């Protein structure tokens, strides 16, 4: 049990842009925190606000230290705002919250507890959309997206990657944040968090999800179809930046699909986004107008298809805008071939020595990848993956239970392990080859 004197000081940093009412809700939620009010400060960074945000903040009486750092002039983006907040923060721990996120009372405490388990940790708290029940197709799509983002992270053997860093409810040591250089402010309002995730993983940080650091996300108040598609466009541009800065990640970015389009539709969308943008934009606008009637007619399948197609189009438009020409795109996609994660970084593990031993070895060596054997039989690979955390012992059983189940069973049968312990034989296993 941690006593109050062991508890670290926390700086909560909230970048905001013209969302005064939403921000007020976040501040109210911070007033309800179970964490001692004397131990945390809140830094709000209004970024080019033209509404009453600054006045509201000046009039707000909070039970904790509330500091306001106004970024004047035009909107500089959340990355710059967060960096500015972090630069003025005095806490040992930085907790970044978005202005449309309402943290539940134990959030700060949950982040602090998670950090107490292990040093050099990046702790994510789930912030799931509040919209529930029967809502529009777009809301439903977003709700599932967020839930599916956080749910796998809670599974014990989940292998975290850079795109798991979501900046709406995340905490890390101030020292670590400074060491990796903070957010990259040149990013256009999208995926700046992913890019920070890349550098954090490279710096050896571990990611984790603290399920009790739960927050409610009022995304629906500020996001509509137009905004979602605009965001797709920004994400396209941001991904090009990520690829330029970390070329080894290019194959993991959705834009790498440009190289080998799957199906005729994708080919057409690619061509429209890269070469015939005038026509493409008109078709996209038409398609967007069709979404409403499709929803009215309850054609969910068609809506989903059209929506993902539109998203894909605008994403590629963003990519094409950032790269300029088709030649530049080809060069960009080629570049990654030279900087794949070398397979030589994988270690070899003999599972016949015992699962616990194998797990312990993974935990100790933290390799990029592993080749799994059972005596002389190859069971399979846990490949080195660009932009993902290094392997841990916890990653072993999930992959053996799912992807490698068949080859692992076969190896066990061929080595006679099954025969000794079980009433069935390798013959019966081969008989039932997985359909």
């Amino acid at each position, binding site marked *: 049990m941690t006593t109050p004197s062991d508890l670290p000081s926390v700086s909560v940093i909230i970048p905001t842009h013209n969302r005064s009412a939403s921000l007020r809700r976040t501040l109210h939620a911070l007033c309800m925190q179970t964490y001692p009010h004397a131990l945390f400060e809140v830094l709000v960074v209004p970024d080019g606000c033209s509404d009453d945000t600054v006045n509201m903040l000046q009039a707000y009486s909070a039970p904790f230290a509330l500091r306001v750092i106004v970024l004047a002039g035009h909107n500089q983006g959340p990355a710059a705002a967060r960096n500015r907040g972090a630069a003025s923060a005095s806490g040992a721990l930085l907790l970044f919250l978005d202005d449309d996120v309402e943290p539940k009372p134990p959030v700060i405490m949950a982040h602090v507890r998670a950090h107490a388990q292990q040093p050099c940790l990046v702790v994510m708290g789930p912030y799931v959309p509040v919209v529930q029940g029967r809502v529009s197709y777009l809301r*439903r799509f977003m709700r*599932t997206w967020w839930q599916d983002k956080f749910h796998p992270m809670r599974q*014990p053997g989940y292998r975290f990657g850079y795109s798991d860093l979501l900046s709406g409810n995340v905490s890390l040591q101030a020292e670590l944040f400074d060491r990796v250089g903070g957010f990259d402010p040149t990013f256009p309002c999208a995926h700046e968090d992913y890019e920070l995730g890349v550098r954090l993983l490279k710096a050896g940080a571990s990611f984790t999800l603290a399920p009790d650091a739960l927050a409610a996300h009022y995304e629906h108040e500020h996001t509509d179809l137009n905004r979602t598609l605009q965001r797709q466009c920004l994400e396209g541009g941001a991904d090009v930046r990520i690829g330029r800065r970390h070329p080894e990640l290019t194959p993991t970015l959705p834009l790498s699909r440009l190289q080998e389009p799957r199906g005729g539709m994708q080919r057409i969308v690619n061509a429209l986004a890269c070469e015939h943008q005038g026509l493409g934009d008109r078709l996209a606008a038409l398609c967007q107008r069709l979404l409403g009637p499709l929803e009215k007619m309850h054609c969910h399948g068609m809506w989903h298809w059209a929506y993902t197609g539109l998203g894909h189009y605008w994403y590629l438009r963003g990519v094409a805008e950032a790269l300029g020409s088709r030649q530049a795109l080809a060069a960009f996609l080629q570049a990654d071939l030279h900087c794949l994660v070398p397979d030589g970084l994988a270690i070899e593990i003999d599972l016949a020595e015992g699962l616990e031993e194998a797990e312990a070895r993974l935990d100790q060596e933290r390799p990029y990848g592993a080749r799994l054997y059972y005596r002389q039989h190859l069971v399979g690979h846990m490949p080195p993956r660009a932009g993902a955390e290094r392997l841990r012992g916890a990653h072993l059983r999930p992959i053996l239970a799912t992807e490698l189940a068949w080859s692992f*069973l076969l190896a066990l049968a061929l080595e006679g392990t099954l025969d000794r312990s079980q009433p069935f034989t390798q013959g019966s296993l081969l008989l039932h080859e997985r359909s």
Partner: protein
Amino acid sequence: MATVVLDIEFEQLPQEITGLDRYHQALILLRFRGRPVGQATVPVVHGRIAGAELREAVLESAGWSLWEAWLHDFLEWDKVRLANAVLPTATVAICTRDRPQDVRRCLEALMHLPDDGQELLVVDNCPSTEATRGIVETYPRVRYVREERPGLDVARNRALREASHEVVAFTDDDAAPDQGWLRALLRNFDDPCVLCVTGLTMPLELETDAQEWHERYSTFNRGFQRRVFDGTRHNPMAAGHIGAGVNMAIRRSVLDLLGPFDEALDAGTRTRSGGDSEMFSRILSAGYRIVYEPHALSWHRHRRTWRELRRMITGYGIGVYAAWTRSLLIEHETAMWRPAMSWLFCTQLPRLMRAIFWQPCGVTFDLTLAELRGCMTGPWAYLSARRQLQKRNI
């Protein structure tokens, strides 16, 4: 001749099974360390099944789910997988109407569930005697609720409102859940998008022809592989293969999110069934998920007489089409046309044709005709049940 239903553990396959003189075959549920992994049908010769034959049949039929179960056990996978899971607590609800003997068997089975703090609730629906109350009173852990308005969906809604826990696991009164039933259902509520979980239902007995035909014609068994149903990948209106109300658990929040069960559907009304599958459709079309979990095993006593069976099959036909009628009229779902048409023209009518040509007076013909009759009257039954409900509510 009848079929004997056997429940056999793979690691304790008997050398020989004897004393089955009344039976001509055996339906065997195969388990691996308690988990259902497959089923096999084995002939009974002179009242016995030889060990070698049993073994062969079992290995033949078990397939991948047996291997998977073995491997998961070897890896202690369940323990690992659920290490961080936050599982909800449950209320087990039995909705019953004038079947005291069945309720007794069901409660007896529920007494064998490991105690994880679950609440047990019997909703006695419009009873004509006090017999059910009398039986429930002999079980001090079980709460008794009397619902005067008739209808299975009325009783289900009452159970959802009365329940004190987050998930309500429904079992019919004519079913007997297995020991691991509730835990297996609850495991799947780890995902917040999952609103409903259904389980595997096996026949409790196959003593009469009607029961054998029930199992053959309209089994509750949906296989031994876990499946996740999602509105984006499955047509929400084709909900029949997800499972049935006899063995399902639902998050109580559906009441607020999607509304209660439609009280114009299911047993006790003119529609006679369909309340469960209509709820499945609603859950899927709202973008939530349903999981079919074969480890959540329950045993169902099928109808014993032909009359009951035929009536039940007609009821299924009515219920399915009544539920689609509701989806069209109330939810304005147009996706119901495709399964409704394909079921009628690609399943029911060809089946009827085959029956006419091969066995004009046979059993399949009789049952198919009964079901088809139900399909035709389904939409009108729904409208009439709705009118009746409105009249009663005035």
